[in-house]
């Protein structure tokens, strides 16, 4: 009989796996929103910001009724560790196992493998991911970008910053992945517009994501004597090291970080004074609305640390979504998506919000919210400019 033990255990495991039971229900019916984000590993800060933004939105919404039924928001987190195959596993589990039809997904790099699943299942994806047309286009009607896209940021700010600083030579240093290659094209098109005014694109280098020594890449770059180095969406750790090592190599111009969410204190810890003159887009030096400050304080009280930069845009998008669902009184993602795309929302933490991108992407799925810029001076953000962020 002992021979059967192994075959039996294999059979048992597979059967248990095959018939996993769905989860139980609460008093009100749960309206599940997924946070398909990295909550461990290097990009954990981004993921936790999204998770907590959804939780704060759930608290503020409380109970809401759709088609006569009472619902309460239930935030479900899936850790993708920022890896493509893990994200596919997460979306499969969310959509098919847990019945989740709405969610925030972080990362331009992890979107390609899951967009087919989003198209097939109609999953309403709030993409917290830069890049551009690859995600928001007519083939993916239920994919929205809830942060400024790369094209939007570069169109809004590249010319503006160059003029304000009187910069003539612009260089690019980005991560060696889809984000970096895509944003390099975006900045080059913008810089070309200023050719007449003598502004030129002088150098382009890429670094391995998570690299620590930027000496090799910076050497060539700094030899071109740039006035501005655009560091694309380099995360806090990377931009701090880039600034420090660039100053060590004698560069004292400005840095522009477009799509990333930067933490001032961490940068000044790592780079000290070398961190000054980093211009970060999408960072508010002064809170734009009362709601923005309130959320920051609630986060500090509840989790005991400063709020990661992804908190506010997630909160705003979630509140806007639930308002729309209540208005159209259905959970059908196609209907909600159409209604959402044509609606606007006044109480987004960044200010009045609407959707754009009809001309650029062929569909109104790109959030249009005021885009701030801040400049780092001795460890604190100072206001640099605020643009409306309009985007056709």
């Amino acid at each position, binding site marked *: 009989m002992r021979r059967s033990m192994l075959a039996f255990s294999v059979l048992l495991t597979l059967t248990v796996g095959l018939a996993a039971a769905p989860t139980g229900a609460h008093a009100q019916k749960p309206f599940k929103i997924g946070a398909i984000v990295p909550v461990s590993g290097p990009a954990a800060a981004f993921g936790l910001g999204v998770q907590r933004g959804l939780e704060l939105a759930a608290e503020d919404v409380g109970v809401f009724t759709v088609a006569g039924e009472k619902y309460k928001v239930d935030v479900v987190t899936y850790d993708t560790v920022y890896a493509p195959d893990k994200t596919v596993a997460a979306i499969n589990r969310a959509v098919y196992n847990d019945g989740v039809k709405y969610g925030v997904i972080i990362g331009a790099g992890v979107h390609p493998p899951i967009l087919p699943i989003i198209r097939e299942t109609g999953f309403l994806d709030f993409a917290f991911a830069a890049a551009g047309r690859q995600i928001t286009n007519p083939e993916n009607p239920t994919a929205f970008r809830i942060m400024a896209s790369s094209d939007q940021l570069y169109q809004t700010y590249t010319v503006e910053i160059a003029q304000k600083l009187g910069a003539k030579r612009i260089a690019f240093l980005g991560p060696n992945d889809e984000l970096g290659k895509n944003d390099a094209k975006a900045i080059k098109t913008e810089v070309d517009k200023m050719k007449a005014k003598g502004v030129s694109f002088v150098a382009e280098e890429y670094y391995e994501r998570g690299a620590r020594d930027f000496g090799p*890449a910076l050497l060539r770059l700094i030899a071109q004597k740039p006035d501005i180095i655009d560091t694309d969406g380099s995360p806090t750790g990377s931009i*701090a090291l880039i600034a420090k090592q660039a100053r060590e190599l004698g560069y004292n111009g400005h840095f522009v970080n477009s799509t990333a969410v930067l933490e001032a204190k961490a940068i000044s810890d790592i780079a000290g004074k070398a961190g000054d003159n980093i211009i970060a887009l999408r960072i508010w030096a002064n809170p734009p609305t009362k709601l923005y400050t309130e959320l920051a304080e609630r986060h500090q009280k509840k989790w005991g640390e400063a709020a990661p930069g992804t908190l506010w845009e997630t909160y705003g998008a979630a509140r806007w979504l639930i308002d729309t669902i209540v208005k159209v009184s259905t959970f059908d993602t196609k209907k909600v998506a159409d209604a959402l795309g044509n609606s606007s929302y006044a109480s987004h933490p960044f200010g009045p919000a609407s959707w754009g991108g009809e001309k650029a992407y062929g569909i109104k799925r790109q959030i249009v919210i005021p885009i701030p810029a801040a400049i780092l001076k001795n460890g604190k953000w100072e206001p640099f400019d605020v643009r409306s962020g309009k985007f056709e």
Partner: protein
Amino acid sequence: MEVYPHLLAQGLAIGVLTGILYVLVALGLTLIYGILHIVNFAHGEIYMLGAMGAFYCLVVFKLPFAATLAVILVASLLLGLVVERLVFRSLRGQWLQLVVASVGISLIIQSLGWIAFGIQEKNVPSFFTGVVSVLGVRLPKERLLAAAVGVVLVALLYVLVYRTKTGLAMRAIEEDEETARMLGVDADRVAALACAVGFVLAALAGAFVAPIYSLNPGMGLEAILMSFLIIIVGGLGSITGTVLAGLLVGVLQSVGAVLLGAEIAYGLVFVVMIVVLIVRPAGLLGRA
């Protein structure tokens, strides 16, 4: 893009400094492989623990520099003895199990690191800030300090391995453990010591490199991948080989970047690795 001599000199200087850092990081790995014939996958994580130790001692507990070093030294020594006693010794001779066990240890330390670390990038304040400029070539002081420490540690290691009785015993059990045992060498004690010294080297490397590169629990993986690269090129178990390979990779990467751009230079390093493997499978100075 024309390349003028100043830039090449700067590239070379950065390359040498970075190369010494690579040597400092890979040193512990080479020693443990050389003496115990174990490829310690957890080497990167001990390096990370050294950096985390430096952070918690200096920043959180505000210990003076000397005390921090002492804490890191003792902690890594003990950890080395414990790991050797509990894991490595019971698997002596079972090469396959040893390697996979060290993968297990590395996973445990790394995941505990991420769970305890929280989400904020942390950094160890460096003792030497600023830059020294020599003939127009700018050398960051903290890297010079780390390089100096690297040179000192390499020298100490040479003295230990080639000038002391324990070193002789270490080389004996490297050559042929049974014969060494028969000649009265307490192989277990020497193996434990070698493992402990390997751990100390990794932890010190972490402590001195942390100020330069900031730290997070994932830094161990980068360190182990680079160290693998270097011991493949330099030759397993050969300290001289590691020093040569570390400098070669450092210079190749930065001078290569000046001439060809960082991306291609990064690829170049791998091409060198493959060529060395085919021409001299045991690395420049290793023994197959």
